[in-house]
């Protein structure tokens, strides 16, 4: 504290000195033990971080090892390195176990369809809404933007019963189409991000295209959408992860066609009930692989945009 005061008191006299010189001065004024304390504190934090990171990673490594043991081997010692590799645990859970007559491979298929179609639909709807509202002047445009913000900002609890009731009335329960229609929302978080993007996009390209006789539809689909590709990929990857992991919607509206997120939960409970632990671990590792692959491929995009999203949301 003392040296801090000296450093700040010294400031008025040395107004013309460069910042570097002042840093050197400040360093000189510091007592040696201060540097050591600082490092010591950082290492304590490092130790805490390291422990937390271990609790996040270790369980999965432990499971990976135990997933290739035989059941007997696992019961004998949960800590031992596997003596033989029972890869059949993996093929077993992939092929021989079913939830509502759907195997894990089937669940992958359903999840892929729901995720890809849901993401494309949602991106299309929100980019259409964002583009038209940000680039075209018409009465009600500001009201629509305000509505989009309102929909996002006001938390509503417990509309699920009414939503279910409407889905029943429209005969959209038990169908992938129903889930996709629910997912195809044009006004949400994606809308706000894409609105910001289109708002800043120059209109000059559109003007040039208009003179060349291009229609408004052509401008949107052939010029604006391709230009929005980086933004769409960033928003889309995060949205797709959300849909891939979504549990509530598919568990209610697709009870006979379990997606991976829903089916794995049922399968894990079943395997735990049967004490088939290595196979349970294998199931968990299998469920992790696709998300890890996507994360490794798009790690920078995902993390940067989550941060940006956190700031805006």
């Amino acid at each position, binding site marked *: 504290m003392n040296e801090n005061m000296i450093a700040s008191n010294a400031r008025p006299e040395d107004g013309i000195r460069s910042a570097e010189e002042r840093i050197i001065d400040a360093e000189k004024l510091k007592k040696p033990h201060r540097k050591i304390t600082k490092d010591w504190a950082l290492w304590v934090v490092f130790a805490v971080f390291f422990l937390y990171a271990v609790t996040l990673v270790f369980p999965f490594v432990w499971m990976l090892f135990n997933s290739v043991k035989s059941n007997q081997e696992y019961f004998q010692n949960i800590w031992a390195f596997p003596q033989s590799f029972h890869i059949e645990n993996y093929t077993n859970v992939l092929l021989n176990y079913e939830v509502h007559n759907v195997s894990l491979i089937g669940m992958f298929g359903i999840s892929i369809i729901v995720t890809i179609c849901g993401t494309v639909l949602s991106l299309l709807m929100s980019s259409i809404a964002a583009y038209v509202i940000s680039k075209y002047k018409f*009465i009600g445009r500001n009201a629509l933007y305000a509505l989009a913000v309102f929909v996002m900002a006001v938390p509503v609890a417990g509309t699920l019963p009414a939503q279910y009731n409407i889905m029943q009335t429209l005969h959209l329960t038990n169908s992938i189409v129903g889930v996709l229609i629910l997912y195809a929302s044009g006004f949400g978080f994606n809308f706000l991000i894409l609105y910001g993007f289109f708002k800043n996009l120059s209109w000059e390209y559109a003007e040039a295209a208009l003179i060349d006789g291009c229609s408004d539809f052509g401008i949107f689909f052939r010029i604006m959408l391709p230009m929005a590709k980086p933004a769409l990929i960033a928003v889309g990857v995060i949205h797709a992860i959300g849909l891939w992991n979504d549990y509530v919607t598919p568990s209610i509206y697709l009870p006979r066609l379990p997606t991976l997120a829903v089916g794995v939960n049922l399968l894990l409970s079943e395997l735990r009930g049967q004490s088939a632990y290595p196979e349970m671990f294998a199931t968990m590792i299998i469920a992790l692989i696709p998300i890890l692959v996507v994360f490794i491929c798009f790690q920078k995009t995902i993390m940067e945009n989550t941060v940006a999203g956190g700031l805006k949301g």
Partner: protein
Amino acid sequence: MSIRLENAVTAENEYTAEQPNSEKPPRGHRLNRKKRKLIFIVVMLALPLIQLFIFWFLVNVNTIIMAFQEFDWSSGKYIFNGFDNFIRVFREIGGESAVTRRAVINSVLYFPVTCFISLPLSILFSYFLYKKVPGSAAFRVIFFLPSIIPVAVLTMTFSFSFDATLGFVNPILRALGVDHIPSWFGQYPNNQIMIFAYCIWAGLGTNIVLISGAISRIPVEIMEYSKLEGVSKARELFQIAIPLVWPTISTTFVLGCTSVFTVMMQPLMLTPGSSDTQTIALMIYNGVLNGRNLPYLSAFGLAMSVIGVPIILVIKWAMGKPFADVEY
């Protein structure tokens, strides 16, 4: 309904569509252009607006209508029953139903857990992550993982680690000399505390990535200047970093408040079938899944919204107060 909506949009836009920044073409061409633009706006906005109308507006209206109804078994229809559902909701919370009462209490407890334990911890961690603790890049990636791992896998990992006979936590504790190991997921309130512990464990990472990301966007000059001035770490955190990333913190805080009404996955998966650890959202979800009394569930949700939404909006407003938004 869809036709009506399209017409409404058409009527709204008919003579007003104007293109920004464009030069005015000759008159005949302009009318033509106006019409084409109008068609474009209407056709494009129709689908998103119909979706919003049905699945946001009608769903909310339907929630209100259903809350005042009951299913009449003799006619097979929903009939108006006044405030009966609401009276039942408040009676149950008042003590008539131990399960409902506990679900509300559990839900409310998520507020202090997320806002006063998880969030301050995340801010502290984030600051040190920003301060370049050795290996911070790797920590960021690892801390981020819980937010993308399927919740079924993450919850099973957590609960199985604490399995009494085959998990790995108890052997480690025994090796460390802990004698009285509790039954983690056995009974209330142990299981509820474990769910809170899970929420902190799994939620910390995401918060850290969000907040440290925000701190790293503070211009380097500001932090360097404070270093020159010899500002202590604590002052730098509380008087510089926190005020500058306040929007992110207040958003996280408000999200923590809304968790009272939205949390359901954690108790659903960590304590399947338990009636002690239910939350408001989980009760509604289970009710819908099992085809129970939809009008009563609507009333339950609506009653919670009517109480909760104003509180959350006030908190949101109050959270915007302490520090002025700084552009940097």
